[in-house]
Every structure is written in structure tokens, then in C-alpha cells.
């Protein structure tokens, strides 16, 4: 993925590396970023951009439909749904990116070591990963959160832990394929430390599959994390994330459908755009790769 002198083009006088141009001209990448970036910006701004305070109740206007003072309507306590969706997105997105960070931080080193060491170490590490993967995703999350107190940090750790094996697998197979490359053998011959070989020689050359897998995991992490908070095992009130919002909304569907529809839509669009982004990245960076797995 190295950019050499003849693979850059210019855009308004600014040089753009070839890889960026190829990414941005990919339809899937372009569309998903065009959706995802505004979502991230709006949620990051949170309370500063929300039209109302997300916690202020207006009992006279409970279950209001969209329009008027409250653009998307109100919930069971008369709180503004638009503001709640914007602020609630913060923990959902934090969870998606945070959990992916956790699984990268642990999964990548495990995969590098297994793929580079080969033999028995590889066998033991990968078996262990298989065993962790044999616990159904949501049950593993439930198990971890039963043991740990529920707060956003622990949810991030729990969801991150669930996806470590998948990151480790992808990293390992990429590492296996480059571990006999001349530059790795040369570093070994120079007497470089194993840490140097793993992180300075191998890692930079296996980033493509890791980036692809990571981007796919963000969507799944949001999906699993919001599912856990739907079960009451995540971030609770008052700063409820989309999962918890939907859990509450479900109890009021006979009073108003909007309470349920807006956070569902936000969740769906966010997860879908990260999935499309992952697909687009794969098309560009690693066209021969196959489907992802749950």
C-alpha cells in the first residue's frame, strides 16, 4: 500500500496519494463516509447542538408526534426525542469505536505472535481463540457483564473482549503470509528484537486486513453493545444510549410509534453505513478477500 511518486494525483493543487483517491472514488466508501461523518460530528457535538436539553421533561407534551417545538416528537416523559437521539448516540458510538479499539489492542498482538511464532504457540493461542469464539457472542457479553458492574467502560471491555478472537485470526493469517518475506528474514539476521520484528516489520505490512476487519467490527460492536444495554446490562438512565431508549420505547408503542422509530432508525443507519464502509474498504484494499463472519 506504499504510495510511490507516480501514483499521486492532484486535486485543486493538493497532492492526493493514490490510495486515498482510490478509496474516495469507491462508491461504497464514499456513500458510507458521507453518512457516517455527519453522524459522528452531530453526536460528538451532542448537547451543544441539540435543540432542547435531553433531560428536561415536559409532562404537558408527553407522546407528542413530530413537528412544532419538538421536531421528532417527545417520549413518555415529554423529553425531546431529537435531543435524546443525538445525546444517546454518544455512548453508542463511543461503544462501537471503543470496543473495536479494545479488540484491536489485544487481538492484533495475539495474532502477530501466533502467526510469527508458528508451531505449538500458534496452535495453543488459536485453539484458545476458537474456544472463546464457541461461546455465543451475546452470552459472552452477558457473562462478562454479570461479573462486572454495569458502566460504559465495562460494556466497552466486554464487547471488545468478545471480538478479540476474530481480530486475532485475521492478523494471524496475514502475518503467516508475510513472515517468510525477505525483509522479515533480514531483520532477523540483523539480530533485531522480536518486538521490533513484530511491530516495525510485520505490522506495517498487514494493516490492510486489520483495517478492514476493524471497520466491520465497529458495526457489530454497536449492535452487540446496544443489545446488552437493551437487556439492562449497559449504560442506564438518565443518559440512555439507543439500546436503552428502544427498550423503554417498546413499553410505550401503543402511545407513540415515534419514540421507537427514531432511535431504531439512527441505529440502523449507523450500523449499516459501517458495514458498507467495511465492504468498500475490502473491495479497494483487498479485492480477493472473502465474506466476513458474525
Amino acid at each position, binding site marked *: 500500500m506504499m504510495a510511490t511518486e507516480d501514483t499521486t494525483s492532484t486535486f485543486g493543487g493538493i497532492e492526493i496519494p493514490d490510495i486515498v483517491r482510490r478509496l474516495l472514488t469507491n462508491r461504497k466508501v464514499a456513500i458510507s463516509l458521507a453518512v457516517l461523518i455527519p453522524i459522528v460530528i452531530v453526536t460528538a457535538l451532542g448537547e451543544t447542538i441539540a435543540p432542547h436539553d435531553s433531560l428536561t421533561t415536559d409532562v404537558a407534551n408527553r407522546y407528542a408526534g413530530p413537528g412544532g417545538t419538538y421536531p421528532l416528537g417527545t417520549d413518555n416523559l415529554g423529553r425531546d426525542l431529537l435531543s435524546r437521539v443525538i445525546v444517546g448516540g454518544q455512548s453508542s458510538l463511543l461503544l462501537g469505536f471503543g470496543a473495536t479499539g479494545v479488540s484491536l489492542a489485544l487481538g492484533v498482538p495475539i495474532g502477530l505472535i501466533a502467526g510469527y511464532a508458528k508451531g505449538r504457540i500458534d496452535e495453543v493461542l488459536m485453539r484458545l481463540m476458537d*474456544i472463546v469464539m464457541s461461546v*455465543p457472542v451475546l452470552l459472552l457479553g*452477558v457473562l462478562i457483564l*454479570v461479573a462486572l458492574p454495569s458502566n460504559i467502560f465495562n460494556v466497552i471491555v466486554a464487547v471488545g473482549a468478545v471480538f478479540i478472537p476474530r481480530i486475532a485470526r485475521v492478523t494471524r493469517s496475514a502475518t503467516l503470509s508475510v513472515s517468510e518475506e525477505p525483509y522479515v528474514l533480514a531483520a532477523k539476521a540483523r539480530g533485531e528484537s522480536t518486538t521490533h520484528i513484530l511491530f516495525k516489520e510485520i505490522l506495517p505490512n498487514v494493516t490492510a486486513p486489520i483495517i478492514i476487519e476493524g471497520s466491520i467490527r465497529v458495526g457489530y460492536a454497536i449492535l452487540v453493545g446496544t443489545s446488552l444495554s437493551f437487556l439492562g446490562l449497559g449504560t442506564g438512565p438518565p443518559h440512555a444510549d439507543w439500546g436503552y431508549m428502544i427498550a423503554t420505547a417498546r413499553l410505550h408503542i401503543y402511545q407513540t410509534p415515534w419514540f421507537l422509530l427514531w432511535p431504531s432508525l439512527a441505529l440502523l443507519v449507523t450500523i449499516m453505513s459501517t458495514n458498507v464502509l467495511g465492504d468498500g474498504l475490502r473491495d479497494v484494499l483487498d479485492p480477493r478477500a472473502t465474506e466476513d463472519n458474525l
Partner: protein
Amino acid sequence: MNTLYLAKRVVIAFLSLFIVSSLVFGMTMALPGSAAEIILGTQQTEESVQQVREEMGLNRPLHVRYLDFVVGTFTLDWGQSLVSDQPVVDLIAPRLARTLQLALFAMLLSIVIAIPLGVIAAADRDTIVDTLITSVSYVGVSIPSFVSASLLLLFLTTPPLDLFPTGGFVPFSEGFVPWLRHLILPAVSLNVIIFAYVLRQTRSSMIETLESDYIRTARLKGLTERSVLAKHALRNGLLPTVTVLAINFGWMMGSVVIVEEIFSYPGMGRLIVQAISERDLPVIQAGILVPTAAFIFANLLADIVYTYLDPRIQLGEQ
């Protein structure tokens, strides 16, 4: 060679079960708030808590309880529920049967609908049909089951489309139609992600197969596209789907926790959620372990099916 490979797989399956049971035991030990305190509620005194703990066997040394649990995993004896005094296995058996009905029905739905759609999309690659099918699958893989379940409830159980019951379970013995009516919504919401995922996997592996050399040869022999597809491509193209179905079974075993809770479906998932809120330790442990075991053996089964379906694979010979 295949026997050796399969024997190895069986050993690994049991080893995994042993390690998972240790993992489950270790993590539930850290469970905050003991059952004794929850049962006694506001009535508790230091003495009464101790007495209840004694009755529950919670005062035995940790290693004794660990051995009990691991041995129990293989003999299906996880002791008594702390809350209802029933043997855990008696609580689990009927609920597992209901959960398996749900999961297998959901699986059947994705096999009879998603696989054909995936094949059609692959055969008509890059046409409007393909684009439509793949776009639908994009939406499908992105809907968490609690969202699809809530939306189904909103649209199909309230007027004007009051078509299904909002939840519950009716045994098959009380009639096929009531049984099916109660099963459809939970099965569909359990299925949306898996359906989309099976569809995508079928499509991409069929495309790969249709581009292979032996399919080109079959076409050059002058066979019709229909017979190329039916006689030559399907068998190989569907192989990866077998593995995918097994992976999806594991996904379902986790998602039942959510779907059963939403549709008040009295299966394993609800049992787990309830046990967690009551801190019913033996039920939580077995409740997480049993679906995991089901998944481990589903994978084993998929491996066996795979080796029989594809004579080219001699997995033992590596």
C-alpha cells in the same frame, strides 16, 4: 483418515466444553450481590444470611464447588436452583426444547428463503434483481434483533394489521396453527441478520463457483445454464453455507436472550435473564453453558456434514 480427523474433532469439542465450563464458573464467582441476600431481602440479619448460604451449599470450599460444577457439566447435574428448589436440569430441559424449536424453525426459514435468493442473485449477477436482493441483505445484516422484534410488534400486532399474538408459546400438541402463529414473529426477528448473512455468503460463493474452470467446461459442452447451475454449481457452491449455518446457530443461541424476552417466549433466553435478576447462580451457569454446548456440537456436526458433502476434502491428511 476421516475417522482419525473426526475423533480429533470430538476430543476437541469435549475439551472446549471443559474449558468453557471453567470459564463460566470463574466469571460467575465474581457475581455481585449474593442470592442469599436477595432471597432474604430486607429481612436479612448476619445470622440468617449465613444459614441460607449454608443451605444453598455456598459455604463449601471453592475447589469443591468448581469440581462439582465441571463434573455436573458432563453428567447434566448442576444441582438445585437457589430460588425455586427445583433441579436445574428440570428447569432447563423443557425450555431448551422450546428454544430449539424456535432456533430450528428460524434456521429452516433462512434455508428455504435465503439460499434460493442467494443463488438467484449469483446467477443474475449485476442485474436489477441482484442489486435489489443484495441491498435488502445490507439492511438485514444491520438490524439488531431487538430492533426488528420491536418493529414487528409495532406493525404486526397492533391495528390495523393485528395479525399475530404479541408473545407466549403454545405447544405443538395443541394444534399446528396456534403453534406456528406464536413462533413466526420471534423466529423472523431471530432470523433477520442470519437470513441476510446466509444470503450474502451463498451469493459470493456461488459467484466464485460459477466462474471456475469446470463450470466453464460444462457450459462449453453445451449444457443449458439451468442444468449447469442445478447439476454442477449448487453442490460446491453451497458448501461454505453449511459452515455459515453452524456459525449462525451460535449467533441465534445468543440472540434468544433478547428475542425470547421481547416475545415472552418461555425458553432458555428468558430463563437466563430471569436467573441473572435473581442471582440464581446454578441456573445462570448452566443457562450459559447449555447453549454454548449446543453451539460446540453444531460446529462438530457441520464439520462432519462438510466432509461427507465434499469428497475432495480429506481433512485428516494435512
